[in-house]
């Protein structure tokens, strides 16, 4: 693929979250470009990831550590395991810049994380910045803005 259709972009985002819900984390990690970033701001409308705190601002190495940890036999916070569920409003194409090889989608979503008898629900907007690399779409940046990003949260252990 060189010029993804809008439907390609939508399908990609849906598949991305579905892989998380299915705990197929390695495959999910492969969706990121080598310099891909997962960003969950702490601040409403945050612009600076460097000198302002974030909930997450992780490169592929850090994401890989998470994925490996989730499999680990001594990961006690995952004994028993958490599960999660994404519900997406149909992703909207915010930007198509083929010359710059940049495609941006905007997706309102709910994220449910559950473990034992506890269930937490989060409302957020996901913004995906994608690029075509080696003929396939990859994530350059996945930004997740939680509506109450600055609220006091308990554990959030999987991926929104």
């Amino acid at each position, binding site marked *: 693929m060189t010029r993804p259709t809008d439907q390609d972009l939508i399908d990609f985002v849906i598949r991305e979250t579905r892989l998380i819900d299915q705990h197929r984390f390695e495959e999910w990690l492969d969706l990121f470009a080598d310099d891909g970033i997962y960003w*969950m701001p*702490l*601040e409403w409308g945050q612009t600076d990831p*460097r*000198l*302002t*705190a*974030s*909930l*997450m*601002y992780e*490169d592929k*190495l*850090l994401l*890989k*550590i*998470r994925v*490996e*940890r989730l499999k*680990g036999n*001594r*990961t*006690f*916070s995952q004994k028993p395991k958490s599960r999660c569920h994404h519900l997406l409003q149909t992703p909207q194409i915010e930007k198509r810049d083929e010359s710059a090889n940049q495609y941006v989608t905007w997706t309102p979503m709910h994220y449910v994380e559950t473990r034992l008898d506890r269930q937490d629900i989060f409302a957020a907007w996901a913004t995906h910045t994608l690029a075509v690399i080696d003929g396939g779409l990859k994530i350059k940046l996945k930004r997740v803005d939680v509506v109450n990003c*600055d*609220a*006091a*949260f*308990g*554990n*959030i*252990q999987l991926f929104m």
Partner: protein
Amino acid sequence: MARYRGDVEAVKALVRETEVHRDVYIDEEVFALEMEHVFGNTWVYVGHDSQVADPGDYFGTTIGTQPVLMVRHSDGTVKVLHNRCPHKGTRITTETYGNTGKFFRCPYHAWSFKTDGSLLAIPLREGYDNTGLEQSHAARGMSAVRHVHNYRGFVFAKLNDTGPGFDEFFGESLSSFDNLIDRSPVGKLEVAGGVLRYMHDCNWKMLVENQTDTCHPMIAHASSAGTAIDVWKNAPPGAKKPMAVEIFAPFMSSYEFFEKMGIKVWPNGHGYTGVHHSIHSDYSAIPGYFEKMVEAYGEERAKAILGENRHNTVYFPNLMIKGPIQLIRVFKPLAADKTLVESWTFRLVGAPDVLLERTLVYNRLINAPTSVVGHDDLEMYERAHEGLHVDANQWVNIQRLYDPSEGPDATAVTNGTTEWQMRNQFRAWSKFMTMSM
């Protein structure tokens, strides 16, 4: 039923030399008494004065469970006021930050108060003529906390008149603050980067104890720090070790490392880990920083300041500070089984931004609700909070490297794996809990 209120002996019996009764963690009545006594008779951290730089600036927070406002008064001093209108009790402001100008105005009936809390004006004031308002509680305005101390920017308050003075309470433990502050070439800090708020379904003291619990990282954090090391092993040869790995890796240090690190205890429940070295010792140097420090302090003093690598300094009852990485954690008690952890970060005024950047990386990786290290710890706390409901054994053990001769309110340096600092905290707990009963 009341089992502890007004019963000094019962409260004292909760803390033994090497064991602590579970009611100290899970009993709501004990919690209520802690709020009155432990958080009333001690100097509790309120905030940093860089949060209220200008006259009228305020910062809303709590002391124990008491809502207060830290405000910059017109005379430039920092006041701490109870966030409550004397008329009907309305909280004056619910916002964390703001500037109220020359006075606070209650949103319900517009009574107003000077920034020192004193009553300024009441609409239709004549309605109170000859009613004896002067003798009422309301006439006092927004009650100001009488005992407030600003130590080089760090503001503490003591709610009760009982309890020791500021200097007596902290004594030489302030040296950890000094080291944190001196790390700024101009000796000045600023709260920066934003605060991470992490809710814990467990008792606040579990977190405080954990700050000097040096026997848990290699076990409880094997899942996070251990995995980080393993993953990094596969990095292409010669790849520069990222900040994140530099931060994670030391958590997996050996028992020997932690034994040798040393723990120091001070009177009134204060103490710290990392006397000789710490998990922060081997961070790579930040270009340009050392030079600035030498400029400011001369080489010897600069080396001395940066040579201190204290790990966690605990200030009784609920504060922990980390000088080498410029962050502090406040363990806010909400209920016997609910604690809000606030992790605050600081900019070293006059130092390169990269230091703040590293501080924020540390905070994000270790103290966020999304932090894998945080997940490791919270899992332990919540399991402990559950486990303490077992009736068959109602005691928590704090016996490691116990020495009958250690006694209360000692100053000493000892093996880095001791639980002495936990004992130290509980001796202080007993003392301040019963002081005003």
